[in-house]
């Protein structure tokens, strides 16, 4: 490896920090929708696999940290993950302490990264021998995964019942495109269906508004009133280890450690579970809220890092919600990567480790410094100038673009169909994890059903 490759990795990480600091502060920017298209573009541009990996790791570390800022400061969740923190953030904001607590959150977040990067690398290292034996059965693993995620979700029966219809829809569209000759038979449409699932709930919300009655009922009479805390006087203290109390350090650290072992589970689910469990020990509502959000800040980082590092390094198959979701392009981005030739196959252990460390360290140093000093100012600028309308417009444009690129004009409507179904199921209570797993399980599942009956 030469020095220029390292410079490339550092450059990619810095670029990721700059881009995702901005995106992270914009409320409502769903992680998958903002990570997937950009990562896909980076992969397709043909840069070295190590550069791609550094970029992605820096992107998730930055995004997880910055998403918590609008959540804590103005109670608008920065992304899906930070929606877990919203209740506690309201308590903290009402107490007038949010400017102070965001520093604790940033410190806990840094702690989460420092714990989970080495731990997930070690876990992946020990899991690798088993990967050889399970890899040939990956198709069945996705079916088992879809069933497993249904069984641990809140709506078990509903989720189980939705797996096959979803699989049938995905395969029906693929066969339609193959049959019409729009897509060559050796090519499987995944990326745009994937974003269709992600953006489904938004599509359903927008479609419902086309119903006059629902539209009239949804009208509200005032703008969103938001108050931003004034700059905290205590700005000098930025050492992450001094910002946290002993107990906060213990909980954030322990939480980050635990979730590494559960990398196949839903990141949002884990974050809520562990954050609430550690917060509950405190009677005082303010103390409980602070403990929950600091724990969650550490846990969020760990769920994302372990969710991408372990499956990518040990297996090369997207077997966690993070890998199937936002990190999908690292596994599957034809023609550059596919399930038999991706970062897992291209990079050795030491190259992989180096790329991860460069991404994580640069993201932590830059975004931590930026946030502990300027979080309030950035929030104010973003909220004053970036309209929510533009954010929603951007999501719609991304999905139209990727749908068109995957299978032409007709697929825009194919993806709309996917979005409307999965968004409706989502509202009814079928989580993203089950739906993503169903997408991956679809070919084997449909083949199995036809063979069996």
């Amino acid at each position, binding site marked *: 490896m030469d020095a220029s490759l390292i410079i490339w990795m550092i450059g990619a990480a810095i670029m990721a920090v700059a881009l995702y600091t901005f995106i992270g502060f914009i*409320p*409502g920017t769903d992680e998958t929708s903002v990570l997937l*298209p*950009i990562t*896909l*573009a980076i992969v*397709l*541009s*043909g840069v070295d696999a190590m550069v791609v990996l550094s970029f992605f790791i820096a992107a998730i570390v930055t995004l997880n940290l910055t998403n918590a800022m609008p959540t804590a400061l103005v109670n*608008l*969740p920065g992304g899906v993950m930070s929606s877990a923190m919203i209740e506690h953030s309201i308590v903290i904001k009402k107490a*007038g*302490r949010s*400017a*102070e607590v965001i520093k604790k959150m940033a410190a806990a977040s840094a702690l989460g990264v420092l714990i989970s990067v080495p731990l997930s690398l070690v876990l992946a290292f020990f899991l690798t021998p088993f990967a050889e034996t399970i890899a040939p059965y990956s198709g069945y693993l996705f079916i088992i995964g879809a069933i497993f995620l249904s069984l641990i979700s809140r709506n078990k029966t509903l989720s189980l019942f939705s797996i096959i219809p979803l699989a049938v829809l995905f395969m029906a569209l693929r066969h339609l495109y193959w049959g019409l000759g729009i897509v060559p038979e050796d090519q499987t449409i995944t990326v745009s269906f994937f974003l269709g699932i992600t953006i489904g709930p*938004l599509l359903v*919300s*927008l479609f419902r*508004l086309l119903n006059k009655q629902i*539209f009239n009922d*949804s*009208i*509200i*009479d*005032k*703008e*969103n*009133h*938001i*108050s*931003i*805390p*004034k700059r*905290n006087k205590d700005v000098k203290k930025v050492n992450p280890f001094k910002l946290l109390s002993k107990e906060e350090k213990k909980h954030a650290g322990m939480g980050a450690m635990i979730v590494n072992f559960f990398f196949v589970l839903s990141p949002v689910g884990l974050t809520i579970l562990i954050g609430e469990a550690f917060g509950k020990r405190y009677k005082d509502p303010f103390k409980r809220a602070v403990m929950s959000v600091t724990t969650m800040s550490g846990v969020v980082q760990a769920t994302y890092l372990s969710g991408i590092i372990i499956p990518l390094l040990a297996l090369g198959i997207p077997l966690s919600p993070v890998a199937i979701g936002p990190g999908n392009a690292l596994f599957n981005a034809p023609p550059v990567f596919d399930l038999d030739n991706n970062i897992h196959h291209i990079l050795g252990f030491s190259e992989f480790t180096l790329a991860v460390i460069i991404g994580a360290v640069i993201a932590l140093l830059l975004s931590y410094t930026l946030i502990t000093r300027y979080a309030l100012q950035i929030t*104010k600028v973003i*909220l*004053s*100038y*970036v*309209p*929510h*309308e*533009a954010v*929603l*417009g*951007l999501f*719609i*444009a*991304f999905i*139209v*673009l990727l749908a*068109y*690129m995957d299978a032409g004009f007709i697929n825009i409507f194919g993806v709309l169909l996917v979005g409307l179904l999965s968004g409706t199921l989502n509202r009814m209570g079928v989580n993203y994890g089950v739906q993503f797993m169903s997408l991956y399980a679809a070919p084997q599942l449909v083949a199995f059903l036809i063979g069996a009956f």
Partner: protein
Amino acid sequence: MKHALLEIWGDVVETKALVFSIVIITALTMGAHLLAPADNSTMGLFFGIGGAVLGFLICVKVIKPRRHITIEEDQ
């Protein structure tokens, strides 16, 4: 369609501005994408994202966010 404020995805939007954003950003995204060389999907994606960013910036310039921001007094 009339002007109205709605809450979608946790924040307030104005209907006309929303339709404007969706149309402008999607049109620029697809327009830029179609300008790229047809045989190169990487350039196609880059052009498309470029168009999306341009559309996004236009909306940032033209649309005023429906947020009423105040700065809290002493913490």
